[in-house]
């Protein structure tokens, strides 16, 4: 009984944190206390938060390393924007169109997730990591060769040719122009949309983690063979975690793409996947609030360090290495615990040893 109320408590903290952060930021924006470069980062931060929370589902809860999360983001971004542009005449109301586009983006990314989920079921550890990496690269490569246009007769899709091969009518419009990506996007992503997406994501992920399925997924992470022997279907639960994670990343991709007027496939490369993995690991595996904070802080810090321009990424790299060593080195950890233990003895009790 006490345990259930404890999880409910920590979940409420997470929701509350996001809502309070939203209120505070809206207040600061309204009074003009925020620089324009930082204001432009608000929607990307929301997208990265959703990405980090969804990747945490794969890496932290399911326990499988994924190096291609940006691939799902890319699928969601491109399908979402295509949907949004095609529906422009049909649904004039921007927030509704945005919501529908995000759902379409999420569905397509979820399907891609199911597709990549098939090898996931056979592979383990580093071999799985390389397959997700490969998948991300394949998506990038395919979208680079994809041409999509729309006219009164509907969508036209062409592969490996050029935009002329689309055979568009008089009123036609090229949406995806191969390596040039999509340009001329109407920016309809807002900070509010982003926060709503974060809340929806939190609702899905937190409810999943605290459900029967979530416990089954964590049992698979902790010991696959033992979990299998008590009758947990590996295929079903691995697939479930993977597809949900991919679908949420797709929605984040749509949100992200709608914040820029131009979007190209190479934006969602290996480095983006790694960036999100860094958020998840620094935030703490399986810790949703940690992912949110890490994603927000690590997106803002490079912005704040703009004045150091050339040195900022160097500093970022050094800080990353030092943080990883400080949080994972056994000697350093026990030293830290001794120091903290002197100040607040309760901390030492709460610290649990990792597996």
């Amino acid at each position, binding site marked *: 009984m006490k345990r259930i109320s404890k999880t409910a408590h920590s979940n409420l903290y997470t929701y509350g944190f996001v809502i309070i952060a939203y209120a505070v930021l809206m207040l600061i924006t309204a009074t003009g206390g925020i620089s324009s470069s930082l204001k432009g980062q608000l929607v990307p931060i929301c997208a990265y938060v959703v990405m980090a929370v969804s990747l945490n589902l794969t*890496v932290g809860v399911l326990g499988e*390393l994924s190096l291609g999360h940006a691939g799902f983001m890319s699928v969601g971004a491109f399908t979402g924007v295509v949907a949004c542009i095609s529906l422009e005449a049909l649904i004039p109301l921007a927030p509704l169109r945005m919501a529908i586009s995000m759902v379409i983006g999420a569905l397509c990314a979820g399907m891609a997730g199911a597709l990549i989920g*098939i*090898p996931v079921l*056979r*592979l*383990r550890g*580093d*071999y799985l*990591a*390389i*397959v997700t*990496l*490969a*998948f991300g*690269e*394949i998506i990038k*490569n*395919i979208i*680079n*060769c994809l041409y999509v246009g729309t006219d009164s007769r509907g969508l036209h899709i062409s592969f*490996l040719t050029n935009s002329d091969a689309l055979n568009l009518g008089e009123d036609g419009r090229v949406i995806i122009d191969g390596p040039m990506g999509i340009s001329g996007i109407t920016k309809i992503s807002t900070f509010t949309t982003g926060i709503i997406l974060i809340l929806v994501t939190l609702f899905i992920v937190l409810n999943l983690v605290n459900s029967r399925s979530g416990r089954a997924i964590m049992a698979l992470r902790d*010991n*696959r*063979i*033992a979990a299998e*022997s008590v009758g947990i279907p590996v295929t079903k639960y691995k697939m479930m975690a993977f597809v949900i994670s991919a679908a949420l990343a797709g929605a984040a991709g749509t949100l992200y793409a709608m914040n820029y007027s131009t979007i190209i496939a190479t934006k969602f490369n*290996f480095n983006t996947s*790694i960036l999100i*993995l*860094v958020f998840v*690991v*620094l935030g703490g*595996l399986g810790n949703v609030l940690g992912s949110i904070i890490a994603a927000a802080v690590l997106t803002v810090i490079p912005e704040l360090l703009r004045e150091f321009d*050339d*040195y900022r*990424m*160097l500093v*970022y*790299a*050094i800080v*990353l*290495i030092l943080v*990883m*060593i400080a*949080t*994972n*080195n*056994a*000697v*350093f950890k026990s030293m830290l615990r001794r120091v903290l233990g002197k100040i607040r003895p309760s901390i030492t009790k709460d610290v649990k040893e*990792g*597996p």
Partner: protein
Amino acid sequence: MTFLSYLISGISLGSVYAIIALGYTMVYGISKMLNFAHGDVIMVGAYVCFFATFRWNLPPVAGVLLAMVLCTILGVVIERLAYKPLRSAASLAVLITAIGVSYFLQNAAQLLWTSNPKVFTSVVGNGSVKLFGGQLSISVIAIVTIAACIIIMIALTWFTGMTKMGKAMRACSEDKGAAQLMGISVNFTISVTFAIGSALAAIAGVLLCSAYPTLMPTTGSMPGIKAFTAAVFGGIGSIPGAMIGGILLGLIEIFGKAYISTQLSDAIVFAVLIIVLLVKPTGLLGKQVHEKV
């Protein structure tokens, strides 16, 4: 004839991947970590050779040797400072640290040498050998690359199989605790592995930039990823596997470019990888590890 020339350039590109993949696979075998900074050591090696030969006018051989020495030092220093404190940590923590090192090397290179691409001139010149009455022309660099790859392969097989250090390496990769009890210095063995891997990366960097002459701080990342793929392809941890994986990857890339589509060549390489892993989940020569509860 065109088929033959594609075959040779495929093997040549594959040889570069194989040399890089050897570094990945040796480090993985001994410390079970994915050293993502390996690709950037390639870039550092290429820059050192570039400055040695074109700025300070050293002979090419001296340039390559200097690059090897500096990369060896760099590899050992990285291992001591960044990876050694995390010897007993979770593999994901080490992976992120390796990514941090990779960012560090790329950005340090950008500060030191700017992001303007440098035009690397081949260390062996741009000559080519004509065969079959001029129908088939093979560039000297392709021949040198393939030869270097074969020499390295033979040397490494001898080293890991016959020498005391090589045996220590294999012992460490099998069971570190038991190896230590037998009087093997695990830390020193790991350092030597990083040293060899980094020296190979320097050679690969010079060969890669001799064949594809643009040198930038990000030059190493894509070949790094490809070589990592090659190592997994052949079964990570296996030295002959890395060799076979690298050469196959190079061949698939060149043939894919020539006969299917230039734009889709990367997608083809990675798709083949996924299919191979579906059939053989631990790579071509990887060991099947049986899990116990």
